């Protein structure tokens, strides 16, 4: 017996409602209203912010606890990370080095921290392939962290003797001078792969374009939105924004990183549900739900 087409009927009804009966609401920005603030211990108009913040903290702490207990938390594979292994294999075949660029910011920038975690994993991978890993550094303090990351990577791969400290070197802290130095390394050494993970600014396109011209595989990742278009056009794979942090959590399996990632995923899921519910209710003219989220 054929199943009654409930879904099709509901979709048809929804379509008819939206086409002929949906509520039209002014979406232009309402005229600005002047308000004033006053000192108080607790602002009841911000209760919604308080509740949502507590929920978010609860999600993150819950998942961090689960990760610390050793539970396996699923994180999907990031596309660019597959390319790293492919690039290492290609570099071994061609007998060429791999270039790793960690951005131009100091260790107080989260993107640089994520980059160092990825560097350790890349070092472990290239050590097993016996491929030289060149790491030019922009900030002096990052040099010590990078040296340690690379050395640990080689130790984990069981190849401590293959670690060459001369391959991790400080160039300059000046932005375009650093870009010029990195471009020079790309043109001279002709690496098989360029990895650019971290915080970049205007020098990003200079380096990515030079790397493209040498024919290297390029994988980049940054959370600086303005540099993403340049990486997207010049690189083979780009980790966009949060994917950079997810990659560091995925590779390191560090409980705090994993827990934060899963907690924010749950928060995103909740936001999607709230948004859908709000849109449906607004379309039927019910504004009480969305008004709870409006901050005075």
């Amino acid at each position, binding site marked *: 017996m054929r199943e009654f087409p409930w879904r099709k009927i509901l979709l048809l009804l929804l379509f008819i409602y939206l086409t002929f*009966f949906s509520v039209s609401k002014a979406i232009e920005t309402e005229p600005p209203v002047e308000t004033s603030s006053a000192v108080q211990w607790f602002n009841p108009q911000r209760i919604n912010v308080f509740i949502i*913040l507590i929920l978010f903290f609860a999600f993150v702490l819950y998942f961090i606890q689960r990760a610390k207990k050793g539970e396996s938390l*699923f994180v*999907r*594979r990031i596309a660019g990370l597959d390319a790293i292994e492919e690039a290492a294999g290609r570099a071994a075949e061609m007998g060429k080095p791999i270039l790793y660029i960690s951005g131009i910011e100091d260790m107080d920038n989260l993107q640089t921290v994520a980059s160092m975690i990825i560097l350790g994993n890349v070092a472990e991978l290239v050590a097993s392939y016996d491929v030289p890993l060149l790491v030019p550094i922009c900030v002096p303090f990052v040099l010590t962290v990078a040296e340690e990351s690379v050395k640990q990577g080689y130790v984990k791969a069981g190849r401590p003797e293959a670690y060459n400290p001369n391959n991790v070197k400080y160039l300059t802290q000046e932005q*375009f001078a650093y870009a010029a130095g990195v471009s020079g390394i790309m043109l001279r050494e002709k690496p098989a792969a360029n990895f650019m993970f971290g915080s970049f600014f205007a020098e990003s396109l200079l380096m990515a374009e030079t790397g493209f011209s040498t024919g290297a595989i390029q994988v980049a990742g940054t959370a600086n939105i303005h540099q993403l278009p340049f990486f997207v056009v010049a690189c083979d794979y780009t980790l966009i924004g949060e994917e950079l942090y997810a990659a560091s959590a995925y590779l390191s399996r560090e409980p705090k990183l994993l827990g934060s990632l899963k907690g924010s995923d749950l928060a995103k899921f909740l936001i999607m549900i*709230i948004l859908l519910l*709000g*849109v449906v209710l607004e379309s039927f003219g019910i504004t009480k739900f*969305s008004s709870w989220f409006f901050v005075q």
Partner: protein
Amino acid sequence: MSLEEGKIMGTEEIIWNAVATFLTLCIFTFLYKDNPFYKFAEHLVVGVSAGYFAVILYYNGFVPKLITPLRQGEWVYIIPAILGLMIWTRFSKKWSWISRFSLAFYIGSGTGFAIPLYMQNYVIRQLSSTMLPVGFTTWALFTNILIIIGVLSALIYFFFSKEHTGFFGGTAKVGIWTLMVGFGTGFGLTVMGRVSLLAERVVFLREYFIELKYYLYILFKYGLPLS
């Protein structure tokens, strides 16, 4: 004529604008290749801005916020002064642990101010303004559908707890296309911004050479340098 009210530039203005013109052209030489003129201009701007910042910081930050209150007997400012000095211990391997107290205070208070407000302004306010009615009766309602689809699909793209397969993967693809449209917009605006800077510099060069022409004409015809 000059930028200001039709007056011709005086000698002092001509000289200083000549310096600005020379440095502008030095920077433009980088378009061909790196060279000593470009390096000179770049190092000059880095040095001057660092020196300028140091002086401004001293007279606008250090003096009014520390030295003047201490001179006026407000001894409570000694506490932030000591916290500030403790950060300098970062340069010593043996004593760098002391800087952690100052950093903890700075990061803690900064985070405490920032997190609730970022949650309020970047998440909740945006969430409430994205709850738009949708429909096909008016163009505005129809474009709201595009906004909702874009937001949801982009959120799904950044969802890491599920593989991008099936319907979920298809939605994530829509999300990445939405992001690419956004990146294209950002790229276009970046090009516009950079062209604006170039346009202003070229207009400056054009006006300077016109001024220089008038100045030299007056100088050679009447032999009088303008003040």
